[in-house]
């Protein structure tokens, strides 16, 4: 599975302005709706579910990265949005550092295996210092898309 299979280019937000966790999650779900991947009327319920999941345990695994994710019946396929915050957002991360890069994965509930595979891909890439650093520095949608393309060509082990 490649990142490009599920990252929606229209839902890459290189300059997210929300300053709190819930705001960032809402922005990303909205971006997926704007890109035509989700119905506008489902945005709120999906965002709420993602926030609820995040409340159960932070997906901020450290080093300025968080990977919020949610499964919901209103999600038609596996898709991801990416947000970058220059100022940093508090995600109650494990290392207590602010989060600068958020990769959010949305999956339908009936594809647990694909969900796991996509999460594992995201995690493996984000574990690489270089990928993480470049993602944090990418200021345009194009540069993020390019970064994802490069990452897919040299899969992380």
């Amino acid at each position: 599975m490649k990142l490009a299979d599920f990252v929606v280019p229209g839902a890459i937000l290189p300059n997210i302005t929300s300053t709190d966790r819930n705001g960032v999650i809402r922005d990303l779900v909205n971006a997926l709706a704007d890109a035509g991947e989700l119905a506008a009327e489902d945005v709120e319920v999906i965002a709420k579910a993602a926030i609820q999941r995040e409340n159960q345990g932070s997906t901020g695994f450290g080093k300025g990265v968080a990977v919020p994710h949610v499964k919901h019946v209103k999600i038609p396929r596996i898709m991801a949005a990416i947000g970058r915050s220059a100022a940093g957002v508090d995600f109650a991360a494990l290392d207590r550092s602010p989060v600068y890069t958020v990769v959010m994965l949305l999956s339908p509930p009936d594809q647990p295996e694909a969900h796991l595979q996509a999460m594992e891909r995201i995690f493996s890439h984000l574990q690489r210092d270089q990928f993480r650093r470049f993602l944090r520095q990418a200021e345009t949608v194009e540069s993020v898309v390019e970064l994802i393309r490069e990452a897919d060509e040299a899969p992380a082990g």
Partner: protein
Amino acid sequence: MPLRRGIGVSSGVVIGDALVLETEEARVPRRIVPRDQIDHEVSVSDRAFESARKEVAAEREQFAARAGTELADIFGFHERWLGDVKPRKEIASLIRSKHYSAAYAISVFMRKYRRRFQEMGSPFLQERARDIQDIERRLLHHVGGETRLELASLKDPIIIVAHDLTPSELVALEKTKRLLGFATDAGGTTSHTAIIAAGLGIPAVVGLENITSNVSSGDTLVIDGLHGVVVVNPDESQRSTYAAEAKHLEEVRDTLAELTELAAETRDGVRIALLGNIEFPLEIDDCINRGAEGIGLFRTEFLFLEADPLPGEEEQYRAYCDAVDAVAGRPLVIRTMDLGGDKCHRGGGWEVEKNPFLGLRSIRYSLQNLSMFRSQLRAILRASVHGDVRVMFPLISRIMELRQAKFVLSLVMEELEEEGFEFKSDIPVGVMVETPAAAICARELGRETDFMSIGTNDLIQYTLAVDRTNERVAQLYSPADPSIIRLIRRVVKDADRTGTSISLCGEMAGDPLFAILLVGMGLRTLSMAAGNIPRTKKIIRSVSLADAIRVRKRVMSFETEREVLNYLRDETRKVWDEI
């Protein structure tokens, strides 16, 4: 007097009467029926087909509900085969033309049919001979034929001689308490049956090629598992030599058996936990009977190797639950599948690798085959609520692999929680330290794990760059090599520094020669094959920690493997002269 050499897989000497187990196809007696009974035999055969088919159909439905369509398909094929009119007609014509009994006609036909598969060039189709065997067994059961093991419902102690024994047959035979030892045509030191025999301490010689054709039931046999020798109908002098040897070994065993209830404790009161290594849940009872305080290594790949198709989550869950039940509250360390290298399951799309031991094996394979890994973790986690279950990842060579594996574990926990399954969310997570990389970075690994276990078999092979199955270099493989000793010492120290519990679970743990040294190096948990537990305990109870530390210091000063071995042999003999 004829002396046959094979591969000794389990030490011990035994003398007794042979019972030759016939292979399946030769088992059904040739029986000719009177002319007026022919119609009856044909209908017996037809009814056997019909009831066998119904039985399979019922099983298929059961499996479709539980394990998905893959497995159900295999049963589906059996069902269609049994519903086919062709085999019924051919068997009926054998009965009519040769007056065979239904059972014998079926066995003759099936043997001929099976042979055609065995002659096929494609290994995949050859494998189908196993399906045919399954169908045959089922049919014979329905015509009222007895099974091989019922045949062996033993009254007197015997030595089993067979072409091959399956692990479950061996365990069933052992449970009769009449099994003295066994000898087989097939097999090698790494066959599952051999590993279990060693664990159970049953003297056995395998790989004899044609022992079944050279021995008849009732012959007297000597099985010398230590030297891999079988003597058929020994003469007086052979008999008395082996009898003396067997008696001596028995005395040693009895001395050791007295220790079962006692703790593995040094003379100055340092407790060492001795745990068992197992492949199958069936082996747990034996570990505990020999004094194991739990299971330090449950090698789950055997669930996968034997299976075709691969076991699903439910099947694994049942196996792990069986193990949890058997350990009865004691710790159970389940190691996730260590596939690849020399252990590839059927199917699974294994690519031929130039260097399988440096290739896609073990945790690397799991992380690239997430759907298998996922179902295994789900099964382990679900079983974890029933006891003291711990999960261990094998062949970790970099911290990233550990983090990835732990991440997948956390996702699987999330999934189970969503589905409402119970599991132990704080299940202890550990790693095997069996690559030089992991040993050198043990401190970093220790910080992110609850426990570590040193797997010496792989650690030695990778550190010394020796394949011990390669006869030309096998002598270079040694746990006594100073590099290995220093590496282990380093790992133990690093584990202590990070407050991570540390154990050792390779063959070195059960080798009596190293018991004193391992204690002196700071190890307080050793996990080994059941058969090695009593003598290890005996040695531990005979030394003090001060002795062990003195031995360790001396050993650490040696430069060659030879010096280490000679010194350890002398030191061990001082406390136990049976070495």
